[in-house]
């Protein structure tokens, strides 16, 4: 740059990003000039203050006018991406709960119900207390219906990071709970929050299984069955059939360890209660139970009513605490072989198995 050339500042199309002032990309992408979708390489001539598109931005020739010091940034408060979850899992043992189920099967309502039982003071959990969360904003927004999957193109991979302005992204909701006992042991929970569409695509096409590899690290899998579907004779059988296929994919394609507990969650049982029905009245639940058993897992059926249309018959949040009990009841010990994990057989349920690596799949 010669003395006659004015220094160039760079800008970002995202109005919330301060990369022009701080050099730090809001999406936490190091090579943002090349990778970040918001950074279009608009170079602002500081003398003329007009934006002109540039074709190539060379890293070393883009000086920054650091007008303001960079703020201290915290987590987004929403669902955690893989890298965000990793930092928690590195610091302490974390219970990864794989929440599985088709669209509208009650997955998000379960998350909201859990949160409400902790924060509302009404229908409190009996055994657990709230001890922290990096997803508080996300829990609040889901609970009032403000954070739903957007119409249009569904994200096709787990997020690495999330930022405040992101739309809802596939990731993990974080919450820490403590036992309401003298010594108050704490449990870090990461509950997967994924679109139901992913599970439909899973059973239709095994090629989509890679993005669900994290289930192999899960401490427990919760498979949600929708009572509303079970009640409707025209939808019941397809619902059961689809869930059987999901179970098969989890076992045969993703190859989740058979010792991982599987909870079969019958959601919205308030609808059954309202019609004086019970889960025993539905043979299809037995069919799923048997499918899970045949695949080598040990299932447990748990009915829940995250929100009840007839609270006089069955309370709001019924069964949610029992599901948490189930999730925390067992901790899988690694098999006692190979003190040093080989490259062919990666360490049992080690975190890196969350990221798909075909050559490392267990054979």
């Amino acid at each position, binding site marked *: 740059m010669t003395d006659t050339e004015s220094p160039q500042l760079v800008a970002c199309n995202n109005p919330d990003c301060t990369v022009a002032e701080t050099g730090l990309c809001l999406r936490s992408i190091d090579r943002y000039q090349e990778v970040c979708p918001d950074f279009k390489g608009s170079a602002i001539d500081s003398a003329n203050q007009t934006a002109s598109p540039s074709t190539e931005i060379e890293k070393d020739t883009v000086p920054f006018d650091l007008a303001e010091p960079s703020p201290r940034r915290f987590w987004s408060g929403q669902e955690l991406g893989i890298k965000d979850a990793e930092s928690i899992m590195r610091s302490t043992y974390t219970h990864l709960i794989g929440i599985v189920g088709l669209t509208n099967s009650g997955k998000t309502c379960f998350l909201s119900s859990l949160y409400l039982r902790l*924060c509302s003071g009404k229908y409190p959990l009996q055994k657990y207390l709230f001890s*922290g969360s990096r997803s508080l*904003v996300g829990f609040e927004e889901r609970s009032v219906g403000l954070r739903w999957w957007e119409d249009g193109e569904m994200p096709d991979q787990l997020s690495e990071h999330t930022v405040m302005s992101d739309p809802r992204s596939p990731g993990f909701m974080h919450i820490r709970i403590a036992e309401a006992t003298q010594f108050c042991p704490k449990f870090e929970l990461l509950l997967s929050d994924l679109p139901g569409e992913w599970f439909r695509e899973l059973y239709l096409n095994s090629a989509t299984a890679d993005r669900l590899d994290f289930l192999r690290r899960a401490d427990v899998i919760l498979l949600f069955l929708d009572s509303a579907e079970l009640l409707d004779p025209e939808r019941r059988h397809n619902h059961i059939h689809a869930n059987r296929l999901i179970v098969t994919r989890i076992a045969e394609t993703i190859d989740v360890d058979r010792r991982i507990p599987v909870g079969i969650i019958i959601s919205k049982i308030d609808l059954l209660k309202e019609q004086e029905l019970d889960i025993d009245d539905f043979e299809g639940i037995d069919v799923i139970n048997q499918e899970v058993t045949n695949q080598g897992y040990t299932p447990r059926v748990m009915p829940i009513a995250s929100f009840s249309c007839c609270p006089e018959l069955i309370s709001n949040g019924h069964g949610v605490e029992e599901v948490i009990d189930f999730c925390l009841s067992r901790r899988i010990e690694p098999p006692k072989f190979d003190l040093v994990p080989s490259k062919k057989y990666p360490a049992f349920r080690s975190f890196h198995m969350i990221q798909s690596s075909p050559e490392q799949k267990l054979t």
Partner: protein
Amino acid sequence: MNEARYSILVVGGAETGKTNYIIRLWLALKDQRGMIRLAALPDQIEDIEADVHRLLSGAFAGRTIGELGAEFVIPFRIDGSEILGELVVPDFSGEEWDRAFLNRQWPESWDIYLEHCVGCLVFVRSNVLVAPLNWVEVAGLLIKARAGEFEGFGDLSPDVSETEFPTQTQVVDWLQFLSHAIEETRDSPPLLRVGIVVAGWDELEKEATEQGPKGYIEKNLPLLNQFLETNDTIFRFRVFGSSVVGGDLKHDDQFRNRYLEGNPVKSGYIITDVDSSPKKSKDFSLPIAWLLGVQGK
């Protein structure tokens, strides 16, 4: 004698009573009757004296003292001892705290107070408190969605900055931010003392005051209460009630007249829980004394 520097953050959203407490605290320190007393007059008191003028004239302060980014530095001594120190109270407005929560960041300039931070006072006030999610309302919304009465909540999604988050959610996140920032800044993070101040205690219904400040938090901010009780390796907390002048200067003319005819410097009170029952004190330095570890655990 070492004059250690102690910074205390004053946390809370807009209109939660932070500024009026600081003004009242200043008057109490100057009065030399409390547990914490003024050791010397600070060089610069123009900003706070402007608000003192308002209070002594019968009006509450409107907003944060002085310019944004200012700090209040108070040389203090502890009654009955020769311990001296410098109390640093940075002046962060409620709007700045709200922005920190919404934007998930705070200015780098705030970090300079972390090194000597002994704790914080978190202000909540009943008439601006955003209640926790109403279970019944949420259940109603979701039941309707289930029944197909909504096509989808996507249409209802407002800009997140317009969402009114419950007070307890904001406070928990502020405390998580603070704990995280101190852990990153200091080699041996201390146990952080958190004084929750329920401001405007005189505005509460009698039934609400009978349960004391701790009882008020347990009932109205259950998430915050659980958070503090289960994180006793990170925080030590205590709850206070506060009434700066003991009544309503804005809407109660009779009270205002009595206040002005009396001694405003001795008005108001702090409520503490003693043996599970609320006790009234005239010493406005009590929350500060507790933060400094002088008064009680």
